[in-house]
């Protein structure tokens, strides 16, 4: 009881403190990376975009306990929405992000109405099916999407009319980091809100939550749509940075990679998503640069080690170390 009584004040304090420092760490890390690796900005931008995407997946898998293998559906819809808006309506990048979010949210809502009624294996299968249907549709609608050749020539105007996307990729990187920080703050607000607590409850025991009067299905659809919108933003960013949208945005491997990155970092914590993405992409990149032919071994070995030694993900490593030291 005492815990509940002290909650509001503790929570506001924790929220204000807790929401400042991870954002600061991300911003500082991004700033350091910007100056330390000036030649790798294109790759760093891809990491940042993937972080946004994995964060959105953390909301549904990590917090609400909804395991899907079709998160690429929302990413892809966001990418196509942003690409088409840039080509046909306005090249403004922020408008593209808005439409990307709307695209992702719309497909998440449409598919979520069905998906959130399913569980376990059924949910996995249907979510894969949704993505495959979308990929086939994008491949067939050649007049709209360019089919398997991709939707080329997506170019965006300077951000706020000032910052033009440059060759080295500095603007693209800073732009993506700003979006990541905004998304991170938003995710923290969601996770810390009563709605976020309800999600954690649903993850723990849906039947109990139903018993205390939480509309479980509606909460799940809501978080699915929110996560869809963020995934759509990630897709839109990728479309704007690359300047091309291919039907590969709906690839199964993308949905699978996202799950791997999240589990690697630690699901159910926002930094888990960020650390998992960072480590996965960097190891992938370095291993592939050293040996472009056999690098998959390294990724496989790393995953095995993490899953067996740290089932909670890399984020639990400090805790584990502290506990081991205390024991000895």
């Amino acid at each position: 009881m005492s815990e509940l009584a002290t909650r509001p004040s503790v929570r506001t304090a924790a929220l204000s403190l807790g929401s400042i420092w991870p954002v600061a760490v991300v911003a500082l890390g991004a700033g350091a990376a910007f100056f330390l690796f000036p030649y790798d900005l294109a790759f760093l931008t891809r990491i940042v975009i993937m972080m946004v995407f994995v964060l959105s997946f953390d909301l549904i898998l990590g917090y609400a306990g909804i395991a899907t293998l079709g998160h690429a559906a929302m990413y892809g819809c966001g990418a196509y929405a942003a690409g088409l808006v840039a080509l046909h309506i306005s090249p403004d990048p922020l408008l593209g992000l808005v439409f990307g979010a709307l695209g992702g949210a719309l497909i998440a809502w449409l598919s979520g109405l069905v998906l959130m009624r399913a569980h376990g294996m059924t949910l996995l299968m249907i979510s894969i099916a949704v993505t495959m249907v979308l990929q086939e549709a994008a491949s067939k609608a050649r007049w709209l999407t360019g089919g398997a050749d991709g939707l080329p020539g997506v170019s965006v105007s300077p951000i706020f009319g000032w910052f033009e996307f440059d060759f080295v990729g500095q603007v693209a990187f800073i732009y993506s980091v700003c979006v990541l920080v905004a998304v991170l703050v938003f995710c923290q607000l969601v996770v810390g809100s009563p709605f976020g607590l309800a999600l954690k409850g649903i993850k723990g025991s849906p039947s109990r939550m139903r018993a205390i009067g939480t509309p479980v299905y509606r909460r799940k659809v809501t978080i699915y749509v929110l996560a869809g919108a963020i995934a759509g933003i990630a897709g839109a960013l990728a479309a704007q940075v690359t300047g091309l949208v291919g039907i590969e945005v709906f690839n199964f491997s993308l949905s699978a990679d996202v799950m791997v990155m999240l589990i690697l970092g630690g699901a159910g914590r926002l930094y888990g998503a960020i650390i998992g993405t960072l480590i996965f992409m960097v190891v992938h990149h370095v291993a592939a640069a050293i040996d472009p032919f056999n690098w998959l071994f390294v990724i496989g070995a790393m995953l095995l080690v993490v899953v067996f030694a740290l089932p909670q993900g890399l984020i639990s490593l400090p805790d584990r170390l502290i506990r081991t030291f205390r024991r000895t």
Partner: protein
Amino acid sequence: MKLIKWTLCAALAAATGVWSDAAAADTIKVGVIATFSGPNAIWGKQFREAIDVYLAEHGDEIAGHKVEFIYKDVGGPNADASKAAAQELLVRDGVKYLAGFDFTPNTIAVAPLIKQAKVPAVIFNAGTSSINKQSDYFLRTSFTLWQISQPAGEWAAKNGAKKVVTAVSDYNPGIDAETAFSKAFEKNGGAIVEHIRMPLQTTDFAPFMQRIKNSGADAVFTFLPAGPATFAFTKAYNENGLKDAGIAFYGTGETDETTIDALGDQAIGLVTSYHYSDAHDSPLNQSFVAKLNELHPGSRANMASVGAYDGVHLIYKMIEAAGSDGAKALEAAKGLAWESPRGPVKIDPVSRHVVQNVYIRRVERGVDGHLVNREFATIPNVPDLGYEQ
């Protein structure tokens, strides 16, 4: 603050190529972007092995410049990875030429970069005609579907086929092949009785075989991506009695050297129209195939190998003419002609695509027991017929 300024300067210098020029001295770097891992890794493997052959034959020096190849894996069709890889190669490694490119989206994604950096990009495979319109710095040593399908249509019409049904995989290359073949076939007096488009993912072709049979055609023209689909299609073609019913098979790259032996005896007699066979009868091709076997035992040369081999030759010629000056190199490449393992080739100055012979081949069992594509008719000097479409 000083550090910040310095780093920014370095980044800028690298971007404009000033700094990397000085640092790289006389080594000219070539970035090869392709798929070296995952289910499509065969592309990168064939590219790399052919580059090895060229290096073994010609050394890594040309006109006083040392040539260094840097390989970048993009893991399959992935435009984001391809663009980031190109950016990294251009900005950090200071490459003066890009090469590789197996998939169309991966290729189109780098178009704005090579335009800005004035770096020629030699495409070893990606065969969509419109790619070369995206940037003047694209050069291509492979083929386009128009280039091989239109001659197939003309040849079929002149060699007895009256009614043809087309059956292609329902994606861009399939549609290109269908359109090019049909146009040429009808122009030469043939009739297309039906266009069948088959789902890309399917491996069950029995219902399509029935439709082909029912259409009353005397031949089927097909385009399928190499791999399981081709295997299942040719199997269904035999098992459903199309061969016995006298319906001829016209294809393009379905009998690729790397997968042909897996097709087995059922492939014997299939007729295809293509620009390269490792059984091409010329001394140059024989030495190319022999060298490949010596360096990489068990490997077979296919269209990707010859695309990469000729692509590297083109890059060597550009370096010889212009060193690391991209714009000048591009001019030197236009109109360049040479003898390739596939026969005589030339870079068309307008489309910057290779002009080459297209061969009509039939699958036979070769002397060493392997299945081969035996060329028996030649349509000489075919340009990229899809460029003006």
